[in-house]
């Protein structure tokens, strides 16, 4: 096992893709301003049958699942002690940093009475039965942990004299000494809130169809979030490799694939066994929208298993396809459970408006822009020699 050297990627930050992403961010900023000036009704189609829309479901529920790369890798590297995967840790962590921080931004835009948001932190307001309270506190704590875990990347880039002047070298030593506490928290906290994102749905009762409504929701959400974590690490690393000609991690991913495949099999088994136990197996084959969505989800969850357990897992292209399938599966599962199959009754329907979607897209574009900025200027990616970075991008 060679020494892991993290290096900034270098290269121009302001490129054409960067500017296009920036355009979407500006567009989103305009609509966000309207949201705060004129109310949510001005920019979104959320209503009182569907009070939760794309800002929460796409940016927070799915977005934080995309940010589970850090969680997934920390579990594997530090808890199951597979240090071969160490080169993947920092980029995964960075994905988590932005997935969660911008998920938090989306929450602040979505809250109707956002100026009271600090009430979540005040013990005298706390209502301990609320799942949302637990998620809010857990996510806030996790964002803190993620930034603290990432902080060494900043510190490594700073010149020693600068650090000594502000006492940051002592901070660096402190962080290093207690990193294991942060790592442990970085596995506990997502376990809690990713499963709770499933528990949230239990209050829906009759409004959530039986194909999705089960007491096992917490475990199903947790396992799919973990699988998505592995998926996003594979996806992101493959994209970066293709765009910036960095070191290929095909061999590592071939091994990682088996872990992801295990989770996907477990998820699917639990779901179908539970459906059988509750006596609703016939609903899956009813041929209506709900039944077909359920079958589609199952297909997307199992397709990667066939790819990732066969010899195809050594091919970068198939790894990429497998990763995309995992992410699509987990995303569709969350989208179905939170929005598409929700039946409030009384004729309520919901489809996001264009401004609403543009805000969602803008937040994702901001994530990508910041990710690119950070990998180019900070020691995140596992580097080879500096000569490897040929083309400017």
């Amino acid at each position, binding site marked *: 096992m060679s020494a892991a050297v993290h290096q900034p990627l270098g290269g121009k930050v302001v490129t054409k893709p960067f500017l296009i992403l920036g355009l979407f961010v500006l567009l989103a900023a305009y609509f966000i301003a309207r949201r705060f000036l004129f109310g949510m009704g001005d920019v979104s189609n959320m209503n009182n049958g569907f009070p939760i829309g794309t800002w929460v479901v796409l940016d927070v529920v799915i977005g934080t699942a995309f940010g589970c790369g850090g969680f997934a890798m920390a579990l594997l*590297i530090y808890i199951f002690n597979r240090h071969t995967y160490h080169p993947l840790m920092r980029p995964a962590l960075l994905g988590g940093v932005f997935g969660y921080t911008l998920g938090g931004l989306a929450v602040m835009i979505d809250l109707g009475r956002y100026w009271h948001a600090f009430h979540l932190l005040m013990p005298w*307001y706390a209502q301990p039965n609320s*799942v949302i309270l637990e998620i809010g506190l857990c996510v806030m704590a996790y964002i803190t942990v993620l930034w603290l875990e990432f902080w060494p990347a900043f510190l490594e*880039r700073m010149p020693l004299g600068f650090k000594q002047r502000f006492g940051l070298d002592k901070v660096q030593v402190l962080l290093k000494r207690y990193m*294991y*506490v942060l790592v442990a928290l970085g596995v506990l906290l997502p376990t809690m809130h990713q499963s709770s994102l499933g528990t949230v749905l239990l209050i829906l*009762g*009759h409004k959530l169809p039986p194909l999705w409504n089960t007491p096992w929701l917490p475990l199903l959400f947790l396992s799919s979030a973990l699988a998505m974590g592995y998926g996003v690490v594979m996806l992101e690393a493959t994209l970066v490799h293709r765009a910036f000609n960095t070191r290929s991690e095909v061999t590592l991913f071939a091994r990682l694939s088996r872990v992801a495949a295990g989770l996907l099999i477990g998820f699917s088994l639990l779901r179908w066994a539970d459906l059988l136990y509750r006596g609703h197996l016939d609903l899956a084959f009813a041929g209506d929208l709900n039944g077909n969505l359920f079958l589609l989800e199952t297909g997307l969850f199992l397709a990667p298993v066939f790819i990732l357990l066969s010899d195809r897992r050594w091919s970068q292209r198939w790894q990429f396809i497998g990763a995309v399938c995992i992410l699509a599966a987990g995303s569709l599962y969350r989208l179905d459970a939170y929005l598409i199959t929700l039946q409030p009754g009384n004729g309520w329907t919901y489809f996001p408006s264009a401004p609403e979607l543009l805000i969602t897209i803008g937040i994702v574009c901001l994530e990508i822009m910041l990710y690119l900025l950070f990998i180019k200027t900070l020691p995140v990616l596992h580097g080879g020699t500096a000569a490897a970075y040929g083309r400017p991008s």
Partner: protein
Amino acid sequence: MSLSRRQFLRGAAGAVATTAASVADAAAPFAPRANKPLPPKAIGMLYDSTQCIGCKACVSACKDANGMPVEQPQALAGWNEGTWDTAEDLSGKTLNVIRVYQHGTMAQKDQEVNGYAFIKRHCLHCLDPSCVSVCPVSAMRKNPITGIVTHDPDACIGCRYCVLGCPFNVPHYQFDEALGQIAKCQFCQHLLKDNPLFSNPDPQVTPATDAKLLSEASQPGRIPACCDVCPTGASLFGWVEELQAEAERRLALKPGVVYDFPRGLLGGDRAPNTAPVGQYQPRVYGEKESGGTQVRYLTGVPPEKLGLPTLPDHSSAAVTEGVQHTLYKGLIAPLALLGGLVMLARRSVKQDDEAQPDQERPS
């Protein structure tokens, strides 16, 4: 020294065992917890759909009593200049609404086929409210004595989890306001505050023991506005236990028998509405639904046709809290898991550091 498989398994087994023990501690994991009981001085409403004539005096009175603006749908803007409230459903401006069921020729009132019927919709003040259970900042609260479910916009963060969670789709957020808040019926608690009978938390003071208070209490302007103005007594206010008894009395009567329907406050001294009893569906809606509610319905048409959902006997709050408490009781499981994780992470990080030197930049 690397972490051997045996050591890892030992550490992991310890963490998992502690976690499993704390989770298995619950008698039946994932079972809904017990339903909440009726509060000691639970007040409520009985709405009798067969006696409702759809006059909507209650809708107008509610707007008046709560200072809510009129509803002006865009389609009717041509002639509605703000003097006519055309509420079609509950909304950020409408806390109480009358809706109509229509079928076929609509020849006969309270008939399911080829008939029509009225239904009053507003907060049912559940015994085990989903909204109270899900609210992160205690903006939704249930009064422990009277059972009224109130909302405090000064605590509310606008997450709209209550809107999502209510099985009756009652709380409505004002999406069209920049500083929107949640709107829902609060039983005219501002009027009840001035009512000596209901503002007294002393359990000794009950209708049976204080007839004078009862008479005072049923004066106009001292009970919820909708029950105050209802001409037929379709909306009736009172103690939940007495209202339940009244509902069961009506269910036992033969249709067509002439009955004195009380108006305003049950047990008060207003002149009753003498009218023939209708044909009822053989149950009181709200007695068991979602763990029971304090606003209950007698209907001629099946409740689900009137928009009242079919619900199990336990509340959704009981389901969610059953799962949440199984996993998090006393935070034992998370802390045990954290302990195990810290142990494993510490060993692992130490190993990692021994194998890889620190990166440092020269100054």
